[in-house]
């Protein structure tokens, strides 16, 4: 960076540049920073009629109540386990996909495949929930039809909590695999083609080149992206867990699909009077703080591995 003179004056050009930033900065302030001030209600017994500032302080009572409640361990377990499954499966499948896609020589074919594989990413979770329902529905669903062909009884999937981590994982991978593999594919495009040519001259076949050149060159990126995903492991995909499970099929599936984000939403919605806002805000704050610490920590780790690849 250039050294700045202490007496450096604002030039006209600087002022013009700052003025371009003005509206976005105000918008971010209003919609991101003002709510941050609102987290004081996590330390209050929020009463709708008393408002954000008038409600009485209760210290850490909301946090204590949440941590000691029965649901706390369930939420942590479900959030972590489901996200862990998603990370492992999606990293593995998207790397394999990128490596294979890279071997396809026709550019037109690659583009077509990539476009089709990305498509599910642009369906909303609501539409995905409709699709999942068409497959799993106990009365008409395709899967139960198929089971019927083999002489098995229809299964009420929306009543089988143990099946849902698998169902959600498949849904998650299906929706995201194309998009995730784009990043890996782009990294492969960046490998010096001389490496591949030299190996070919030395008699390495396609498989050997994939094992000794392609995959090792992806390892840093895989490490970094995985670490960053671990940084977000306390944040669940609300759309997936809320719509695809039909709102936890009204409670039947909570034991495996109730996650922090759905819990926050439900306790927010069930208390339109606002009496549990303090508690709900406390859960949100806890999630935000733990999430932030994890992201910073994992980022530090990834920077240790490769200084260029940290997020910040």
């Amino acid at each position, binding site marked *: 960076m250039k050294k700045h003179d202490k007496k450096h004056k604002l030039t006209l050009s*600087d002022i013009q540049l700052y003025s*371009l930033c003005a*509206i976005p900065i105000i918008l971010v302030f209003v919609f991101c920073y003002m709510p941050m001030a609102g987290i004081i209600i996590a330390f209050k017994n929020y009463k709708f009629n008393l408002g954000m500032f008038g409600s009485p302080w209760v210290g850490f009572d909301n946090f204590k109540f949440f941590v000691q409640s029965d649901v706390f361990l369930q939420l942590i377990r479900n959030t972590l386990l489901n996200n862990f499954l998603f990370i492992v499966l999606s990293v593995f499948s998207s790397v394999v996909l990128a490596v294979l896609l890279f071997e*396809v020589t026709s550019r037109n074919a690659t583009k077509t495949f990539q476009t089709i594989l990305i498509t599910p990413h642009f369906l909303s979770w609501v539409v995905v*929930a409709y699709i999942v329902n068409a497959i799993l*529905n106990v009365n008409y669903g395709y899967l139960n039809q198929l089971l019927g062909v083999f002489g098995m009884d229809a299964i009420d999937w929306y009543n089988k909590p143990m099946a849902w981590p698998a169902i959600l994982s498949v849904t998650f991978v299906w929706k995201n695999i194309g998009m995730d593999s784009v990043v890996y594919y782009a990294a492969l495009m960046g490998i010096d083609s001389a490496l591949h040519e030299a190996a070919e001259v030395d008699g390495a076949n396609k498989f050997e080149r994939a094992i000794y050149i392609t995959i090792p060159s992806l390892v840093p990126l895989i490490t970094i992206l995985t670490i960053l995903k671990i940084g977000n492991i306390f944040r669940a995909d609300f759309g997936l867990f809320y719509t695809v499970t039909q709102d936890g099929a009204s409670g039947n599936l909570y034991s495996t699909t109730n996650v922090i984000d759905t819990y926050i939403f439900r306790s927010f919605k069930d208390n339109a009077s606002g009496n549990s806002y303090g508690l709900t*805000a406390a859960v949100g704050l806890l999630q935000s703080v733990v999430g932030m610490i994890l992201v910073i920590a994992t980022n530090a780790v990834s920077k240790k591995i490769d200084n260029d690849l940290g997020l910040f």
Partner: protein
Amino acid sequence: MKKEKKITQIILCTFFALLCALVIFPFLLLVSASLSNPAQLLESGYKVIPNPVDFSAYAYVLKNPTQILNAYGVTFAFSVISMVFGVLLMAMIAYPLSRRGLRGRNVINFYLYFTMLFSGGLVPTYIIVASVLHLNNTLWVYILPGLISPWYVFMMRTFFAGIPEAIVESAKIDGASEYTIFFRIIIPLSKPVLATVALFVFLSKWNDWNTALIYITDSKLYSLQYLLQKIVEDINILKENATAAQMSDLAKVPTETVRMAMAVVAAGPALIVFPFFQKYFVKGLTVGSVKG
């Protein structure tokens, strides 16, 4: 050797063709479901190839369009407004941040970055947006809160930083203001990243259902995806506490096939728009992933 290569290619392409078919298949199942005959559905459930093909669900959707048409209009309006102003405003802050000499640049970077790390959460945000700003039950609540996304700003910033500084310098010498440089030089040179962000913003707004879930109670302002979600929720509630009186309400909600047809109609535009942006897509997406 040549022949071997050809065989590998054929195997690979067959594999990907099958995989693509597998990925598309669930959506085709949805389409099949929407084309089922309601009477036969009760007897034998959904069939992969409906026989007979029955368009009555679509006929029903097209004949009773007020609610869907209204949701379509609302969704289209806020999606386009968000896309145009979102891209413009994000580019407006991304450009100064791409200029190395600008003082305070790191402060603004951090100001944006911190919102990715930490947020007020659902309840405090709700209180600000609904009770303080009174944006609930307005079109604005779909547009304003997420208009500036730091992630896309940083993507644009990286792209802008790749534009040779000499271009900016020479324009300055010719007496161009920063505004002129931004609108006449930077914007036209940045089509790939702007198109990519525009696509993302449009599609994420088109698929927005949770804003309405939290902020909208006026059915005239339902977004398309929320309308779909709301139908499912209403049915689940009716099923749970169905008294005789409420059972008659159940007859009024759209039938299974009609709901599937609505889902197809709601998903369609997103799937049609996407391939047109494809050519910019991978380029725009990967350029921004390098930190700047």
